[in-house]
C-alpha cells in the first residue's frame, strides 16, 4: 500500500516500532476466540472481499461504500501510533489509512448527529468465536462526534505498509490511539450517526469496568487491576524488561486533552 507519512500532529513517534510478527500474532479479536493466539490462527477464514460499509443514520448522504471506494476516498497516510490495551500491554504500530473525518465530511452529518456508532462483522460461518456467547454480537463501539472528527482518529486499511492482515481487523478498522484498544473496532461493516450515546459491547457486558470513553488514564484503575503501568511488547530485555509508566491519553494529551476540558475523567471513565 502506497502511503505518505502523515502530517497530522502526534501521528509520528520516534519510539521503536513493534515487530510485525508480534503485532500480527498477539492481539484480541474475540470473534475468533479469546486467546491472543486465536486471531492469527483462525482469522484466515474471514472473507474480506467483496466488502461493504454502510454509512447511515443522521446524515444527508447515507451510502454503502465498497472497500475499493474506501481505499480511494482520501490519500493514504502512514501513522505510527502507540496502542495501549486495557489489559495492560502496549505496542507501537505503523498504520496506513486516513482520518475518519474525511469520510464523515463526505456523508454530511446533520446537526442533530452527536455520536457515531461502529458495527463490526459477526459471521458465525467464518468466525468461530461468534458461535460462542462471550459477548453480544455483533461487536459495537462508539465515539462522540468531536472524537470521531479528531484528526488523530484513523480509519485504517493497512499496517506496516501492507493491507491489514485479517487478524488485525481487515479490510477496514478504526484506530483511536488515546483510548484503550477495544475502542478501535475492527472489520467495520456499519457506521451510524446518532443523537444519543450508543451502548458499546463492553459497556453492555460490564458497565462498571468499561466506560464509554475508556480514555487511557493511569490515574483511573480498572476495578480489578491498576492501569498505572504497561508492558511494551517486544521490549528489550524480554522477560526481564520493566513495565513502563502509562501516560494520560496514552501520551496524546497535547492533541486531545481539550476534548475533555471540564469533564471529571473519574466519572466519565
Amino acid at each position, binding site marked *: 500500500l502506497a502511503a505518505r507519512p502523515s502530517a497530522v500532529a502526534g501521528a509520528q513517534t520516534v519510539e521503536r516500532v513493534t515487530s510485525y510478527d508480534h503485532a500480527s500474532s498477539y492481539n484480541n479479536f474475540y470473534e475468533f476466540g479469546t486467546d491472543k493466539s486465536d486471531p492469527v490462527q483462525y482469522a484466515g477464514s474471514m472473507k474480506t472481499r467483496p466488502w461493504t460499509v454502510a454509512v447511515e443514520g443522521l446524515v444527508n448522504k447515507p451510502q454503502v461504500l465498497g472497500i475499493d471506494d474506501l481505499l480511494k476516498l482520501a490519500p493514504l497516510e502512514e501513522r505510527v501510533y502507540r496502542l495501549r490495551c486495557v489489559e495492560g500491554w502496549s505496542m507501537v504500530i505503523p498504520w496506513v489509512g486516513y482520518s475518519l473525518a474525511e469520510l464523515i465530511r463526505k456523508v454530511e452529518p446533520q446537526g442533530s448527529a452527536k455520536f457515531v456508532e461502529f458495527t463490526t462483522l459477526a459471521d458465525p460461518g467464518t468466525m468461530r468465536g461468534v458461535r460462542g456467547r462471550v459477548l453480544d454480537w455483533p461487536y459495537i463501539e462508539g465515539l462522540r462526534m468531536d472524537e470521531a472528527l479528531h484528526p488523530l482518529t484513523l480509519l485504517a486499511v493497512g499496517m506496516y505498509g501492507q493491507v491489514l492482515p485479517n487478524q488485525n481487523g481487515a479490510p477496514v478498522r478504526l484506530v483511536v490511539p488515546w483510548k484503550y484498544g477495544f475502542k478501535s473496532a475492527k472489520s467495520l461493516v456499519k457506521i451510524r450517526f446518532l443523537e444519543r450515546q450508543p451502548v458499546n459491547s463492553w459497556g453492555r457486558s460490564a458497565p462498571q469496568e468499561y466506560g464509554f470513553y475508556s480514555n487511557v488514564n493511569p490515574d483511573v*484503575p480498572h476495578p*480489578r*487491576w*491498576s492501569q498505572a503501568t504497561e508492558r511494551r*511488547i*517486544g521490549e528489550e530485555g*524480554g522477560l526481564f524488561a520493566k513495565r513502563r509508566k502509562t501516560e494520560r491519553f496514552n501520551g496524546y494529551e497535547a492533541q486531545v486533552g481539550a476534548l475533555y476540558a471540564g469533564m471529571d475523567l473519574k466519572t466519565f471513565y
Partner: protein
Amino acid sequence: MRWLGHPVVKPVLFLWLLAPAGYLFWAALADQLGANPAEALIRSLGDWALRMLVAVLAVTPLREITGWAVLARFRRMLGLFVFFYASLHWVSYAWFDMGWEWSDIVSDIYRRPFILVGTLAWLLLLALAATSFNRVIRYLGALRWRALHRGVYAVAVLAILHFYWMRAGKSDFAEVAVYAVLLGTLLAWRLWRRRRRLAH
C-alpha cells in the same frame, strides 16, 4: 501393577514432572515464550500447578478403586510438585509482573481478589509442604497431620476460584470448567466415600 513399586519408577516420575519446568526455563532463556514472555510464563506455571493438583488428588481415589496400594508412594512427591509449580507461579508473578515492588504487590493483592485467593492458596500449600517431612509428621501425630493436610481440599477450591476470577474478564470459562469438573469429581468422591463409611 507390581512394576509401580520398582525403585526406578519414582525417579523417572520425578524427572517427568520436572520436565515442564525445565522446558519453561529453556524457553525463557531462549526467548521462545512469544510476544509477552512474562504472561506466558506465569500462566503456564499456573496451569502446571493445577495439573499437579489434579494428579495428587487423584491418587487416593485411584488407589481405592484399582486396589493398587503402591500408588500411595507417589502422593507426597506429587503434592510437593503442586507446591513447586505454585511457588514458581507466584515468584514469577512477583518478579516479572511486579518487579518485586512490594508496595505494588500489596496493593495488587488488595485490588484483585483473584490474586488474593491465589496467594492464600499458595500460603496453604506452604504450610502443607513445610509439614510434609517424616519428622514433622511424627511430631504432629497422624490425626493432627491428617486434619491439617485436608487443607489441600481448600487449596483446590481456592485454585478454581482463582482461575475463574482470572478468566471472568474474558467471560471465557471453558478451561476453568474442565478443571472444576475434574477437581469437583475428586472432592465429591471423597464426600461420597465418607458418607458410605458413616452409613455402615
